[in-house]
Each structure stands twice: as C-alpha cells, then as structure tokens.
C-alpha cells in the first residue's frame, strides 16, 4: 500500500472477517487519502459489502485494524460508534429508505435524529439536498414505495449527503439501473463528492461506474486487495485477474472459483 501524505483518512490493516468456515476478508490492507475517491471492484461474494460494513461498525472483524483520522474504530462502545458514524454518509445498494417516513423525512433523518436539528430547518435542508439530486418538492411529500428505482437511489444519495459528512460510502450505486440512469447517478456522485470535498469509498462491479467516479481503483479477490492504482492505469495493470475482470471474460485465472460457486 502507498504511504499517502498527508496521513490517510481511512487506514485498514490486516482486516480479517469470516462467517463460519467461509473466510471473506483475509488480511486486507487499504489506505484512502483525504478527499480521495476509491472504488473497490470485485466479483459477487468477494467481500466488498463486508468491507464497508466492517468500517461502519455493522460487523466486527476477527482481526486487523481500522483507523479513521488516525483513531482506531474497532471495539468501540455504542456512544463512541455513534460519534464516529457522524463522519459517514452511506448510499445503500437498495437505497434502504425508511418505509414509514416520507421522502423528505428520510433525507432529514440524519439531521433530526443524528444531529438534533429542529424539524422545520431540517425540512428546508432536505428540500435543498433533494434539489441537488434533481428531485422536486412534490417528490419530497411522496412515500418511498411510490418511487422508481432511480428515484430511490437519488433520495438515498440526498440522505447520504444531507449531513455533509466527511466520508461517503457507495454500495453498488448503479446496480439495477438502466445505463442512462446509471450515468446520471454517477454524475451526481462525482458532483456531490466534489462539492463536499468528501472522501469516498465505493464498491461496485460496474466498470463504467468505477471509471467515472474513482480517482483510484482497487481489486478485491479472495479477501485481499490484489491490485490498486490510478483509474487511468487499470487497462494496463499487468494483473491477469484484473484483466479478466474488466474484460468480463469467462476464461482466466478466476474461472475455477466462478464455476465452483
């Protein structure tokens, strides 16, 4: 891993996570610099989502260390975890909007519950964030069940940026969307991350999305980062696993694992 200067926003060392006999993360190392946008690519079931959940404290790793701004975040109590999580925004793969709340209440949730902001002021901020992602005030009054997949992603993005977090995670941001809507979401991600000056960690297997939103791409395979480098270099990585993945070939070193599963 690069010893980034200044010190990385997120530093992960020797991260190990298993579920029973299934080793998902096996000594993963990754540094993400301040203001950097890193995309982790990898096949389905390679542990990308587990990586995000370990950083967010939703899963407890068996071994290794995770530091945010130099502070170790493994084994924190609930109160400390809430403090650390105020630095994060997260766009979930399914958007994970709260069914029982209207769209604007979803976007304002982090402001009212997390930061204790007054409801009226939080609503104003929510409407502004919805406008940032191209949604109108009429949409704000709808329920999540009334939205299309693309609109849900946009609301999820608005919710992720509403508290203006220093770090934003994107879990498969374009999965299930048509190519045009995928590009719209990619553009919005780039715009929002730039405007906030946030550090971004995304996971995807959509190469078009990765090329658009990443400063740096890392490939996860068998629980480790097997290659990482600037986005422009991914086509000449010299790594046969990466080549097979980005060209979507059935033949290659990853073949046996694909068929075995």
């Amino acid at each position: 891993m690069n010893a980034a200067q200044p010190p990385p926003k997120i530093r992960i060392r020797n991260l190990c996570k298993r579920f029973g006999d299934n080793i998902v993360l096996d000594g993963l190392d990754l540094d993400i610099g301040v203001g950097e946008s890193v995309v982790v690519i990898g096949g389905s079931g390679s542990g990308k989502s587990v990586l995000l959940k370990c950083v967010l404290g939703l899963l407890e790793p068996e071994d290794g260390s995770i530091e945010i701004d130099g502070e170790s975040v493994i084994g924190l109590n609930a109160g400390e975890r809430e403090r650390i999580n105020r630095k994060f925004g997260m766009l979930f793969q399914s958007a994970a909007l709260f069914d029982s709340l209207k769209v604007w209440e979803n976007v304002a949730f982090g402001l009212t519950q997390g930061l204790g902001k007054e409801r009226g002021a939080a609503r104003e901020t929510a409407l502004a964030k919805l406008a940032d992602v191209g949604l109108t005030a009429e949409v704000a009054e709808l329920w999540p069940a009334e939205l299309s997949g693309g609109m849900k992603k946009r609301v999820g993005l608005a919710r992720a940026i509403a508290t203006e977090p220093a770090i934003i995670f994107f879990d498969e941001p374009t999965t299930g969307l048509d190519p045009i809507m995928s590009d719209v979401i990619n553009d919005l991600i780039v715009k929002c991350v730039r405007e906030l000056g946030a550090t971004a960690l995304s996971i995807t297997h959509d190469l078009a999305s990765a090329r658009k939103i990443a400063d740096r791409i890392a490939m996860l395979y068998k629980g480790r980062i097997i290659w990482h480098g600037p986005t422009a270099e991914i086509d000449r990585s010299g790594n046969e696993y990466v080549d097979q993945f980005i060209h979507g070939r059935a033949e290659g070193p990853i073949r046996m694992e694909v068929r075995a599963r």
Partner: protein
Amino acid sequence: MNVFQAIGSAFLAFLAATGRLALFAVVSTSHCVRPPLYPRLLGRQMLEIGYYSLPVVGLTTLFSGMVLALQSYTGFARFSAEGAVATVVVLSMTRELGPVLAGLMVAGRIGAAMAAEIGTMRVTEQIDALATLSTNPLKYLIAPRLIAGFTMLPLLVLVGDVIGVFGGYIIGVYKLGFNPGVYLKNTWQYLEFVDVFSGIVKAACFGFIVALMGCYNGYHSRGGAQGVGAATTNAVVSAAILILISNYIITELFFAK
C-alpha cells in the same frame, strides 16, 4: 458418541440463544430509561397496542365471560351453588382469563406485526441505515415498543376485565334468571384488590414478553421473505409459550400457600 454430541450441541445452542435473548432484553430495557426517548414513536406504538387491539380483546373477553357464566352455572347447579357464578366469573376474569386471553390475542396481533415490520427493515438494510445515521436501532425501534407493550396491556386488560364481567352479567341476568342487584352484589362482595392487581402485573409482564419476542425475532431475522416469515411465526409461538409459563410463575408468587 454421536447421540451425546447431538444432545450437547442442541443444549449449547439453547444456552447461546437464551443468552442472546437475555442480553437483548437487558440492553433494550436499559434504553427505555435513558434519553433520548422518541415520544412520537412511543405514542404511535401505544395507539397500536392499546387502542387498535381493543376490539379484538373486547370481543374475546366478552364471549369468554359469557361462556364462563354458562359453564359455571351448569357445574354449580349440581351442588345447588348457583349463587357462586358471579364470583367465579369475576375472579376468573381478573386473575386469569383477562390477562392470558388479552396477552395471547395481542401476541397474535401485535407480536407478529412487530416481527414482520422489524424483520423487513433488517433484510432491506433499513436497520443498518439507522446505524449509519448515528441512531441506535435498539433505542429507536425496540425501546418504544417495549414501553408501549409494558404499559398498554394492563390498561387493555382492565377494560377487558370489565367487558368480561359484563358478558357474565348478561348471561346471568337475561338467560339464567339471576336478580341483577344480587348478581352485582355477588360480583363485588368477594372481589379483592389483589385479584385485580395480580392480573395487572401479569398483563404488564405479558405485554413486555409480546413486544420483546416480536422485536427480538424481527431484529435477528435473516434470509429475505422466508426469514421474515419464520421470524413472525417464532415471535407468536415463543410469546405464547412464555406467557403461559410466566402466568404460572406469577400465580405461584401471588397465591401459593
């Protein structure tokens, strides 16, 4: 050897599950008494448990009271002790039938709904989303439901007791030919504070059990729609069993000689 291994594994799994449930109960209960509380969510849950369960609990206790009057009359008539019908109805309703029937009906109605709602939130990552928005899911989702279950079921049972006694009164007076004044006098005469109080204590305990099992099973559901379905079934079955077991224990504590 394999038989012993299987028994040992099952026993260890049972202990682990009991430990997880106990830990969940203790941590969730601790959130009930530590701010911030969520009054809007608490109010919604109280309305759901207390107000919207009233028709089903009312109907259950009404007909139970009526059946009780009929059956006890049939039995006591053989000993020429028909006068005890009113007393039997009121004691049975306040001590046993009111809290147990209300607990079981609320377990079917509310426990299942809680497990399904929280289970769906779990499998659609909404609970993970709560954590990333700096909101403790136990405090936001579980604590209001526990408080509402603990406080609203006693009120529900008080109303159910009255309706059940009224059901016995209707049968006693209009079908069995008791004098209304005598029936009411017999109802009040042998009723003691502890009879009603023990029912209220049971109801509070059952309300807590229903909410706890609904929340616990929903919170730990896995595997999509099938997992949510299993969580819902487990919530109702486990709550019903725990209600019946704890009913015996509380009765023993109050009335054992």
